[in-house]
């Protein structure tokens, strides 16, 4: 018999607005319907009423976690339309901030994933080493989030020489701890049993749904803007693209953890080779035309398209966040797994709804699974596994 288990309109684990209708047969999920739009803020429309410089600040507020990625993609789009390039020093600065942001965003996910499966130690640990990174952001840009470092034609702030040693010192600490987490998380038999073979997204589905970022790379589909279409300093540094073929939650976790150590490598090289010089080129006007900007955000490719008519405002500004492509793929990834796993699978794409979504009340007389219930189901499963392994 088919039953419907409604989850939402808040994501049970990440406290963000969206609605999942799990269609289940017993414990098994047979289908999924997704409903978004609870927090739609109309950025694309607002951007058409603002000047080119103001839009940078507007798009920075699309997402609170990866607040560097939208303005980054936006300035690349405008620079593409105006045929200007940022001076080398600005390119290096933007790359460094982009990579540091990737580390803090991936750590956020690893910590949350640990919490979801009942490993609160992982959560506390990982977040402990994420914290000093936010202090570094504050040191460089005066803010722990919303850095306002991007500017059409360059960077808004410089990284001062006295900051180099502090960043290096943090990276030394992080490198050691990152290796430790990776080993600790991947060698734990219970975590393996919980994540391995769960929520498999095949490569064919990954291509058809056009998924991006770690979700795609965990399914053996190598797409990374930093390699495919290198911008700023990414083609001047040496690093590896992390790809796994399994497509399960474990593969996605592995991609994220190993990517952090690649990010450390990139930031180190950037700091070592940082050229001197100005940090911005003056852009007087944006000629009529169009431009595309792409940036590899922690969750995948962020895409911005701008069209100019030569005035001081964009005529059209299209924003595509990676979660817009990643979330629909849950429909195939969750099918066939139990409700306890669904919590994890739905969180595995590291969804970010900041990009799309009003409030609604769901009262249809049916059992509603709250976030706490989902967590409890998930924790219970881990506890069962733990007992089995202890024996």
């Amino acid at each position: 018999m088919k039953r419907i288990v409604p989850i939402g309109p808040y994501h049970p684990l990440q406290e963000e607005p969206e609605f999942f209708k799990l269609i289940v047969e017993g414990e098994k999920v047979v289908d999924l319907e997704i409903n978004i739009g609870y927090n739609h803020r109309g950025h694309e429309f607002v951007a058409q009423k603002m000047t080119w410089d103001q839009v940078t600040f507007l798009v920075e507020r699309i997402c609170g976690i990866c607040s560097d990625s939208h303005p980054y993609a936006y300035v690349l789009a405008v620079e593409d339309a105006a045929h200007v390039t940022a001076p080398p020093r600005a390119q290096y600065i933007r790359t460094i901030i982009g990579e540091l942001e990737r580390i803090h965003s991936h750590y956020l996910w690893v910590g949350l994933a640990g919490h979801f499966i009942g490993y609160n130690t992982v959560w506390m640990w990982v977040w402990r080493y994420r914290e000093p990174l936010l202090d570094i952001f504050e040191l460089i840009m005066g803010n722990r989030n919303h850095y306002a470092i991007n500017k059409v034609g360059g960077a808004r702030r410089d990284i001062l020489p006295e900051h180099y040693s502090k960043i290096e010192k943090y990276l030394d600490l992080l490198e050691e701890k990152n290796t430790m987490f990776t080993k600790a998380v991947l060698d734990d038999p219970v975590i393996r049993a919980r994540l391995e073979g769960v929520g498999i997204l095949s490569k064919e589905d990954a291509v058809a749904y056009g998924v991006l970022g770690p979700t795609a790379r965990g399914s053996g589909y190598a797409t990374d803007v930093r390699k495919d279409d290198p911008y700023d300093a990414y083609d001047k540094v040496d690093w590896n693209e992390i790809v796994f073929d399994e497509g399960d939650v474990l593969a996605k976790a592995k991609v994220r953890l190993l990517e952090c150590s690649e990010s450390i490598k990139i930031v180190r090289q950037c700091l070592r080779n940082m050229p001197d010089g100005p940090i911005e080129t003056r852009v007087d006007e944006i000629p009529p035309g169009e431009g595309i900007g792409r940036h590899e955000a922690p969750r995948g490719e962020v895409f911005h398209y701008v069209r100019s008519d030569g005035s001081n405002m964009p005529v059209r500004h299209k924003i595509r966040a990676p979660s817009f492509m990643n979330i629909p793929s849950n429909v195939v990834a969750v099918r066939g797994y139990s409700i306890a796993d669904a919590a994890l699978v739905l969180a595995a794409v590291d969804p970010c709804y900041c990009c799309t979504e009003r409030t609604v009340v769901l009262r249809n007389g049916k059992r509603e699974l709250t976030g706490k219930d989902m967590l409890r189901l998930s924790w219970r499963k881990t506890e069962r596994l733990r007992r089995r392994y202890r024996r």
Partner: protein
Amino acid sequence: MKKEYSKEILDEIGAKFPQASVKIHAPRRTYIRVPRDDVYGFAKFLFEEKECRLSIATGIDKRDGMEIIYHFSHDPSGTYYSIKTLVPKDDLKIKSLADFLPAANWIEREIHELLGIDFVGHPNLIPLLTAETWPGDLHPLRRDYADEHKDLKVEKSTEER
């Protein structure tokens, strides 16, 4: 490192779709204008034969019609192929790509509700972002929307809050 820009796709496009006009904006940014009826075949060609991935689609309200741009990304060469087409305002219809490309499903729903373009053959053309009480014939991203509907009030959901 950086892979070479693929010229052969462009030659094939020229041979297969004589009506397409290609504009190379930057080394890895190509815009191709095609007539409305060719879009479906063209997208199928890029997706199935050239292994391009649908990145997103953009709808623009212009004076002479609605422009739809499907952005395809060819990852091995890092190139963006953006297919542009113009849909006349008195006949807002275009064939949907969602039957062979699940990635087009959400974005076509979004363009349908925000600009009012009818995607023929879409499996589930219901609003994606707007509230369920939002009038279906109001399209908020149209140019004339803001002037015509200044005093619009959307009814609150009848269900208890």
